[in-house]
């Protein structure tokens, strides 16, 4: 009976109203068009080794900013789920994690390409690279864990707990461990090619726009997948209703036959 009540609470199909609004999607596109145009045409600092590749800043780094923001949303919804077991929260958590991981994969690949032409190798086992790779693997395990569980509530609960641990592991892997040792990556150890002092106002103007634009794009992707899952949930529910109804009819028929 108690289980039944939980089930009922889950079935509130409410899509966040913001997901259907178009103003922020228009803003996303405008910001990204600005990022591409300004990011490729505006003046950039003339730095040795980096040369024009400094412009990758507007495309590679926002992937990681976007990933962290999306994964933060994900972990918030996991906590929400644990506080109140509504499947809706689980749907939000998994889809924000999905979008976040896509950004992380794009970040690690774009970083590898950038590294090839500035650090000299696709992969130099730099602490920042290895940390990012381990972090992503931890998140891959999140999806594998989810897919290995059948029961919806169990899947949601266990993966919510795991998600919190994954996030807690990711932060030190990306932002603390690489700083404790030497790294080629800017902001970690001494990299002469590019460090925080080189982030001048020319770059900043485009960079912050880029972060906002790319993050909103991730949000847009996540929102559409969330809506897709809610639609799927609704369809399943309708099937179940139909099944129960026909079951009921069959029972009535059996009864009438026995009479």
């Amino acid at each position, binding site marked *: 009976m108690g289980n039944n009540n939980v089930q009922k609470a889950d079935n509130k199909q409410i899509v966040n109203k913001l997901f259907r609004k178009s103003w922020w*999607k228009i803003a996303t596109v405008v910001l990204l068009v600005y990022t*591409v145009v300004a990011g*490729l045409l505006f003046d950039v600092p003339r730095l040795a080794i980096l040369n024009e590749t400094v412009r990758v800043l507007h495309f590679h780094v926002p992937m990681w900013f976007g990933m962290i923001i999306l994964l933060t949303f994900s972990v918030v919804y996991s906590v929400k789920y644990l506080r109140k077991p509504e499947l809706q929260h689980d749907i939000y958590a998994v889809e924000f994690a999905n979008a976040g991981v896509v950004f992380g994969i794009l970040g690690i690949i774009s970083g590898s390409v950038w590294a090839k032409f500035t650090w000299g190798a696709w992969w130099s086992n730099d602490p920042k690279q290895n940390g990012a790779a381990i972090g992503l693997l931890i998140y891959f395990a999140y999806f594998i864990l989810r897919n290995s569980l059948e029961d919806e509530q169990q899947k949601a609960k266990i993966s919510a707990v795991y998600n919190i641990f994954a996030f807690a592991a990711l932060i030190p892997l990306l932002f603390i461990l690489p700083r404790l040792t030497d790294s080629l990556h800017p902001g970690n150890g001494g990299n002469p090619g590019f460090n925080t002092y080189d982030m001048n106002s020319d770059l900043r103007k485009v960079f912050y726009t880029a972060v906002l634009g790319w993050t909103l794009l991730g949000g847009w*992707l996540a929102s*559409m997948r969330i809506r*897709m899952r809610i*639609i799927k949930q609704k369809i399943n529910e309708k099937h179940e209703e139909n099944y129960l109804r026909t079951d009921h009819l069959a029972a009535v028929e059996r009864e009438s036959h026995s009479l």
Partner: protein
Amino acid sequence: MLLLSASLIPSNAQVVENAPQEAKTPSVEMADVFRQDGKIYVVVAVMLVILGGVTVYMVGIDRKLNKLEKELDIH
């Protein structure tokens, strides 16, 4: 896309670079600037085309979701 990219080119740069040429021969208006600076404008145009395509695709998916939600009465 091409128009957009072309309009972004600073016009004074064109004037300065074309000035000495104009003195020698009557200049013919051509889309020269688009091919200057290592053809970076081509890259901008291509990226805008791709971004535009992705946007159109995503708007299409968004609309389909709207329709499905209406059909299934999801608020």
